[in-house]
């Protein structure tokens, strides 16, 4: 792959960000930052993205994919429109997060790591999002929903579906 192709795969914004990173004394230290940027833009890290990052940042491709797969936060599969992170941390667990998770799986017909067939929601279990005092909690994109109960799940999901419909119109 030539460099121009890599730039095209990632887009000029990210390519330029990588250019900036390369000016750092230790560009390698910015690999994780670059991967965060790529994921924020594309929703997940695809094979070609990783190769392009490797080429532009001058890091071996095996290292890039090794890092991408080591960290739980990085997704290697496409995600739905909304990302649901349900907290499975201690405080949430003792307050019944398992019941909420079961309800979510039930409603969406998927399990952790999957995306609903309509492409609207991806579901992920996560470790503590730091709002333990309002347990159990879940985060949809960057919105934290506090003190969720199984009953509230359909209502919350519907809110997002409505939002999506409104955006379309």
């Amino acid at each position, binding site marked *: 792959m030539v460099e121009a192709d890599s730039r095209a795969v990632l887009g000029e914004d990210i390519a330029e960000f990588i250019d900036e990173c390369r000016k750092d004394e230790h560009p390698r*230290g910015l690999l994780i*930052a670059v991967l965060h940027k790529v994921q924020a833009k594309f929703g997940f890290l695809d094979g070609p993205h990783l190769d392009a990052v490797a080429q532009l940042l001058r890091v071996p491709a095996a290292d890039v994919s090794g890092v991408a797969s*080591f*960290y739980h936060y*990085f997704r290697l599969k496409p995600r739905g429109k909304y990302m649901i992170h349900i907290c499975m941390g201690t*405080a949430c667990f003792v307050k019944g997060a398992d019941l909420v998770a079961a309800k979510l799986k039930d409603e969406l017909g998927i399990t952790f790591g999957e995306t609903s067939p309509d492409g609207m929601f991806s579901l992920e279990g996560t470790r*503590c999002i730091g*709002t333990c005092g*309002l*347990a159990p909690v879940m985060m949809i994109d960057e919105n934290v929903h506090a003190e969720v109960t199984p009953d509230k799940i359909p209502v919350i999901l519907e809110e997002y579906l409505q939002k999506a419909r409104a955006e379309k119109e």
Partner: protein
Amino acid sequence: MKTVASQVSKQFNALSERAQKHLKSLGHPQSVVIQVGSATCENAAGSREVRSEFQKHIAASGRDDIILRQTGCTGRCSREPIVSVFKPGQVPIKYELVNRELVHEIFTQHVLAGEPLLDKVLDGPMTHMYRYELLYCASERCGWNETKSCGDALREKIAAKGLGKETLRVDQASCFGACGVEQIGKCSHILVRPDKVLYRIRSEADIDTIIDEHILGGQIVDKLVVPGKTVGRKFMELYGDVSFFNRQSRVAMRHNGVIDPTSMEEYFRYRGFHALATVLEKGDPNWVIEQITEAKLRGRGGGGFSTGAKWTMGANSAKGVRYLVCNADEGDPGAFMDRSMLESDPLNVVEGMIIGAYAIGATQGYVYIRAEYPLAIERIKHAIQLCREWGLLGKDILGSGFDFELDIRLGAGAFVCGEETALIHSIEGERGQPRFRPPYPTESGIWGRPTVINNVETFANITAILNYGADWFGQIGTEVSGGTKVFALAGKVLHTGLVEVPMGTTLHDVVMEIGGGAAGKKKLKAIQTGGSAGGFIPAKWLDTKIDFDTLNKAGSIMGSGGMIVLDEDDCMVDIAKFFLVFSQEESCGKCTPCREGTTRMLEILNKITEGRGTEEDIERLERLAKLAQKASLCGLGKTAPNPVLSTLEHFREEFIAHVIEKRCPAKKCTALIHYVIDEEKCIGCTACARNCPVNCIAGQRKQLHVIDQEHCIKCGRCFEVCRFEAVIKE
């Protein structure tokens, strides 16, 4: 040297003036201030909506003397959103659980008409308004010499003078931080609100004077006011309103919920960068390290290592590039104090880091923060940006010749990256796997250079030590461990939230007095501290004093300060399993005792909770646990067995019940319970049958329903939906 000092003070004064000018331009002193929290937890509870609702009301009222302020969070999660109203001359009022409707009432009745909504106040209801509030120190340390307790004496005298509840209210508070060595055992302290005056009293006669002159005469009794320099005095002037509600002693979190976390000017008003200026004027890194050592500050990230000793190693390390890192990975589920501090008072953490960098001679720093904290990331980024603009980061800070740059590095959801050697690998852009120590990071860290790593809360304490004195800080807490510790109370406790108390405070004070005990009239069973690396302290040991060493003795650890309260409905075997699942999933897989050990232990625990366990399994579990403890490479593996060992120690009978009687005493383990319908209670509403996912409940409308045990998958739906308590777990 002299010229540097004068240069620093000149530049610092210029910045102070700039801040003051800006603050003056904001509003006149007679303004009403409405304060709304803004942190992840506050926002989750609905504070954004509350804020915009107030904005609308203020605009509609056409008043220009009503100010809406944003602060971080005060750490009272279960009562959020919290709104404070400050009217000149009135005791500040805090409202809890505010929503849109309540905003309207607060605005029209309190802000405009001057009538507080007494039934809606935090920790209320209040039965009446009062002019003064007297808080006396109920902490053991500065207790006084008179035979009657300070509180009793105070109450008697008030009654004797016939002062009604409309005039004043009396309550106890925790340490005000006004107790130097020389005062111990000789005096007590009383804070008068809303005047924010802190008195030192030595005798009952002093109490008379305060009542006569201040409460009745409206004159501050100068001779009893805690004199000039003490911290207590300063704290009271600045934070008197929030820090001591609920019997806490706030040092690291002293600004949380008080200042606007996005404003450099406000931070200056609360002595911002005063500590840095002092340090740079002195121009002696060793002096800083001496102060931190004398303060007996121990790292708040879990290990409890002496910060002074760590900084000394950093300062004595190889010359050349050195790094300073703030560990904001906060991976322990159930701990959220670091997030709260970063969101509510980020400049304080940054100032602590700049001072640390100066002390150890670092020129580059990193804040390693977990990606799961978007708002904290935003706030700390903003704080760094502000510091650059104000000349507090970058080249030649405050004209001292000292250069320091600070950048952010994001984690990516790997718990093990909180471990310092893994964290270093992560900052280097590698997989976050730990390595064997030594060499310790202070010798060889990032890119092989000396690196000092400290926790967020550790840094948050630095400015307090330097502004208010190492001896004062060392006084708070125990012989070997100075200052306070922030705990995150969560789980089955009435008041969830952040609690900061002196080291050495008892668990009872934190969980029962401040936390209000177990929620919902349940019986408290145990308190989990230290997360997946910690253990359980049974309810009967509530009088344990909290400190690094005492918790170790009780078979747990301090950890980062997460405190999960468990009640009678929690199955200890199940919780131990929960932690092991966590450790097993988070194990980086590098070494066998941890990777295989956790997997095997988990298999056994699964067997036990599924009712297939034997007594030998318990013994095997213990053996495996001890092996992993001994042979693992890093802290994760070494501590992963702790929750299991601790439950075996304190709650062995629950294991035995699962294994021998095949019974789960807390009725939690699905395999060991079944659902039945009570003949007496069932009215035949059909709700359970309609909700059963496998259609195994039979019964006609208005007739007794019955569960087919063969087909029941024990999902618990029927139990949840029956409104007549007819479905029971057995």
